[in-house]
């Protein structure tokens, strides 16, 4: 039978994969990619809850996903531009070495 559970499980798995990626990887680009994975996991939940919502006209879940996709694209563009700019100055993309603001 078609239920909500597999979508929620898929979303939880993707979110945690992205979280582990953010915590363990040492490259700013892969960090950004992991953040994209987490955003996508949230999007799956939005679409799944839209599909299983009892109202037949409500499309707010889909609208939210479209907004999230647009903002995630902007975030990826700005983030990668920052990474390239940082690489030009420091010759590294390892976020651990960028510790000059450490208190």
């Amino acid at each position, binding site marked *: 039978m078609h*239920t*909500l*559970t*597999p*979508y*929620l*499980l*898929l979303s*939880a*798995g*993707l979110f*945690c*994969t*992205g*979280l*582990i*990626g953010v*915590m*363990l*990887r*040492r*490259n700013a*680009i*892969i960090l*950004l*990619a*992991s953040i994209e*994975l987490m955003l*996508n996991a949230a*999007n*799956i939940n939005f*679409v799944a809850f*839209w*599909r*299983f919502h*009892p109202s*037949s*006209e409500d*499309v*707010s879940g889909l*609208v939210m996903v*479209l*907004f999230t*996709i647009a903002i*995630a*694209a*902007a975030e*990826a*563009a*700005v983030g*990668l*531009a*920052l990474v*390239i*700019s940082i690489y*030009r*100055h*420091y010759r*590294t*993309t390892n976020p651990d070495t960028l510790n000059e603001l450490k208190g």
Partner: protein
Amino acid sequence: MNLLLTIIALITLASAVAAICLRNLVHCVLCLTLSFAGIALTYLELSAEFVGFAQVMVYIGAVTILVLFALLMTRGGKELHLRSWNPGHWLTGLGAGLGTLGVLLVGIFHSKLREVTPLDTKDESVHALGNSLLDTYVLPMEALAVLLTVALIGAALLAMPERSRPGQTFRKVSSTKEGPVKD
């Protein structure tokens, strides 16, 4: 359980795990693309066609190319070797990730919502989505348009090479004052 969805979910999860495990960064990005494709298929399986194709165009088309080009312009392939193998760091990361997964799983399996069944008379047309975007959500959409424009102009400015060009004196001053770090 739905067989198609199971296959899609397994491919998506496996490629996501591969994307954060592989050492070669280009392979990571390619696995990430496969994962995005699986997510787009999930949207299609949920009969959200417009969002599915938006996912294909934005993520598989644009974001992946952007990430690949960023890799090309920074290091291209090899990740930094782990100079200091720190088990504490790995334990903390894995513990936090798996702990979050556990909390989410407990939440999912204790929820009553997971047994709801979808409505057959769902209005799945793009028509309803477009009406809603231009009616209820018109202001957020305009704000989003401004945000996208500003973000893309800002990204182009950030990534622009800081070369001293004629007629651009302030960049020259700042680059001579600070100078690139040489290590």
